[in-house]
């Protein structure tokens, strides 16, 4: 049995899960904002990707991101396993009150798994995908734009992508309000606004990424 300290306690694990989640929320919007260069055009997007990946600090950022992501996944698994064993005999009949659980909160583990699978495929398809080169204003760089456009030529990939980012939107909409609650902020008048902000964040992520996928499909 592990000693009971902050990192093994229920609240500690929750708070670190929330904190890594917050980091990932920040990454998600930055990533989306960067991807909006796809709307501008091939050169703009390639140049953006080149600037980002040619900065040596990218390795530090990537390491941090991977660390946060793995910690988030591992803690979620630990908590889920503990929660599962906290009720060894399940109810024969259990209905929701309708005043508590939401679709987003109830599907956190499922949407989480979808996102995990999605991210692995996403990295394989794009980051570690085909390596074309292009020349923008005299600089030789990777033609990531072409990789993206070619990928989204397939309507099935577009559909899977939209499905996965909707799962991401749902997951993050619960995540935003959870971060506040778990870190001890719950206020009579602000908390309802935080919940709304969470839903708006989720919608922004889902619609933002989906619109990119659909836009790219029609660039073919």
């Amino acid at each position, binding site marked *: 049995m592990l000693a*009971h*300290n*902050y990192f093994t*306690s*229920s*609240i*500690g*694990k*929750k*708070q670190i899960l929330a904190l890594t989640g917050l980091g990932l929320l920040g990454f998600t919007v930055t990533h989306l904002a960067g991807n909006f260069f796809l709307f501008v055009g091939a050169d703009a997007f390639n140049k953006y990707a080149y600037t980002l990946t040619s900065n040596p600090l990218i390795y530090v950022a990537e390491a941090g991101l991977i660390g946060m992501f793995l910690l988030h996944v591992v803690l979620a698994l630990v*908590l889920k396993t*503990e*929660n599962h*064993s*906290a*009720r*060894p*005999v*399940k*109810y*024969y*009949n*259990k*209905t*929701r*009150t*309708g*005043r*508590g*659980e*939401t679709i987003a*909160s*109830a599907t*956190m583990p499922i949407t989480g798994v979808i996102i995990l699978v999605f991210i692995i495929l996403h990295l394989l398809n794009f980051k570690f995908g085909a390596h074309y080169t292009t020349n923008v204003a005299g600089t030789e760089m990777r033609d990531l734009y072409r990789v993206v456009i070619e990928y989204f030529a397939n309507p099935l990939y577009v559909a899977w992508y939209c499905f996965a980012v909707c799962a991401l939107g749902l997951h993050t909409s*619960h995540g935003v*309000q*959870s971060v*506040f*609650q*778990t*870190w*001890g*902020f*719950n*206020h*009579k008048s602000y*908390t309802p606004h935080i919940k709304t902000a969470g839903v708006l964040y989720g919608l922004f992520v889902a619609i933002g990424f989906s619109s990119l996928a659909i836009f790219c499909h029609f660039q073919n």
Partner: protein
Amino acid sequence: MSQQEQLLNLNLKVWRQKNRKDSGHFEDYRLEGVSTDSSFLEMIDQLNEQLVAENKDPITFDHDCREGICGSCSMMINGQAHGPEKQTTTCQLHMRSFKNEDTVVIEPWRARAFPVMKDLMVDRSSFDKIIQSGGFISVNTGNAQDANAIPVSKENADLAMDAATCIGCGACVASCPNASAMLFTSAKISQLALLPQGRVEAEERVSSMVKTMDEEGFGNCTNHAECEASCPKGINLSNIARMNKEYIFSKIKGK
């Protein structure tokens, strides 16, 4: 009374379990002539009389005050802790909430930390252990202090009183998809942490009560708010947020 008394015929599906070791099963009962004016527990009393008359073992269930203040009566009624009504304990639930020929499923609380002792009665001593590990204040006894000697803001007094309405029934654990006891524990922490008398030991308290809560095998809160929704006393989720905050501060200070 606006509603006329009616008599209901019900089909009951009740969890029967001989003892802690027995694996238990559901049994179906037919109960006729249940007054809509009777409480849910009176309905079970009526069923038990029928069972005794048939020479069968009556159903064991916890109850005491029957006026919604002791928190003994605890059962899952048609999949909801304390039944379908908002902020109502089982003993305060009336049969007028049901319709003639309804099937009513009655189960005990389900959680590793609440083992079933017999039928609908569960062992909730894990809650007592959480309280014993810090849910009190240490004071020197003697004459009662003058009223208002310690100033307390109206806002904090209200919040502390709200938290103190927790009757420890365990509906929060029962309804939580994770069988977490955080609403209970946080209410017991909050009622003291909000008052100057409770501040003295606040850091040690939160640290040791959370430790006991974890050791007793409850699950971890994932912010579904099913506990708040099914709490017969309307204990608010903001108590859990307060506990989370108190906990991190107590850990920073090495308590």
